[in-house]
């Protein structure tokens, strides 16, 4: 469980799984939109969709978990604007991580092709088969993804720059080394 000063292992595990997944997906997404598609690499679309759905599940799990076990408050920054910026960035992460897979799913489902989880389980389609929906959803998906990529870079830079134990707290749970 989280405490007022510590991240519990569940929050940290979800955070780092999502970090790995998001960075991998940004790279994979950038690659598949540029590659020459053929039989040998068509499976990458399936991987992209499957990981995207898993990341969506993780962000929902994270939101639920933080309702059950509230995370510690952000560590105070050197300037008030930095606190505000960090708060906006964190909220933006949640919004983007919810919306990006939703719009990816809408675009995929609107194409008329089955959306499969790990090439096995069909995800029900709840949108009409429509090129307008498909094009619109993928456009939003693409724009939001670029915003997310920028946010990830800012987040990593800020985490490295801050020397107040913020990064350590997300890595090990506590901002301070345990005193034996």
């Amino acid at each position, binding site marked *: 469980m989280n405490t007022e000063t510590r991240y519990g292992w569940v929050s940290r595990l979800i955070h780092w799984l999502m970090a790995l997944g998001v960075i991998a997906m940004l790279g994979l997404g950038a690659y598949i939109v540029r590659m020459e598609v053929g*039989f040998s690499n068509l499976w990458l679309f399936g991987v992209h969709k499957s990981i995207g759905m898993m990341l969506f599940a993780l962000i929902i799990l994270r939101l639920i978990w933080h309702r059950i076990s509230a995370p510690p408050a952000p560590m105070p920054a050197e300037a008030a604007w930095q606190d505000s910026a960090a708060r906006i960035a964190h909220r933006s992460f949640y919004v983007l991580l919810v919306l990006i897979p939703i719009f990816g799913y809408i675009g995929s489902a609107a*194409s*008329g*092709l*089955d959306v499969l989880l790990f090439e096995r389980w069909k995800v029900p389609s709840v949108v009409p088969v429509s*090129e307008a929906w498909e094009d619109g959803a993928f456009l939003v998906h693409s724009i939001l993804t670029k915003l997310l990529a920028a946010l990830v870079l800012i987040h990593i830079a800020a985490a490295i720059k801050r020397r107040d134990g913020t990064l350590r707290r997300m890595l090990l749970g506590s901002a301070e080394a345990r005193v034996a």
Partner: protein
Amino acid sequence: MNKLIFPALVALCLSAVAALAGPERYLLDAEKSKVGFAVPFGPDRIRGTFPVREADIVLDFERASNSTVSVVLDVGQAQANFPFATQAMRGPKVLAADTHPDITFVSRSVAAQDGGAIVSGDITIRGVTRPIDLRADVFRPKGTELGDRAVLSVVLSGNVARSDFGATGWADLVGDTVTLDIRVQVNQAK
């Protein structure tokens, strides 16, 4: 008297033979027939087949222009060589099988050319009709005698641009020119 009867009999036989060599209706052997297609897909080619729903084939080997061909293909049962392509092909962005379940071809003229024929006609895809020329070659199966036309293999080939019919889905991934490779076996109607 005999001198008159014999040429008359010969003339009668020849006219009967000429009548036999006129247009002949053929029935499609669906089991041994395949309407194939191929379309570029990046470095690869998507291939597949359409089942024939109906076919009406009349062949005249003496006057090719008397020959006629009409074929109806079943879009809803079309198959490609991987599942997503099958679904995409039948879907609204390509062939729209729900609203246009058939592809039809009706010949307008047949002209002998280089031992085969050029079959000119109209093809209707997604409700859009466009002219098309198909190269046709007719073969006897192995082991049959010269002049035996009871069973024939017909190979038709040609191209269509899918964009001409509004079948424009996934144009960024899949090529526009669809190559048709139709190999059918037909049996002379009795």
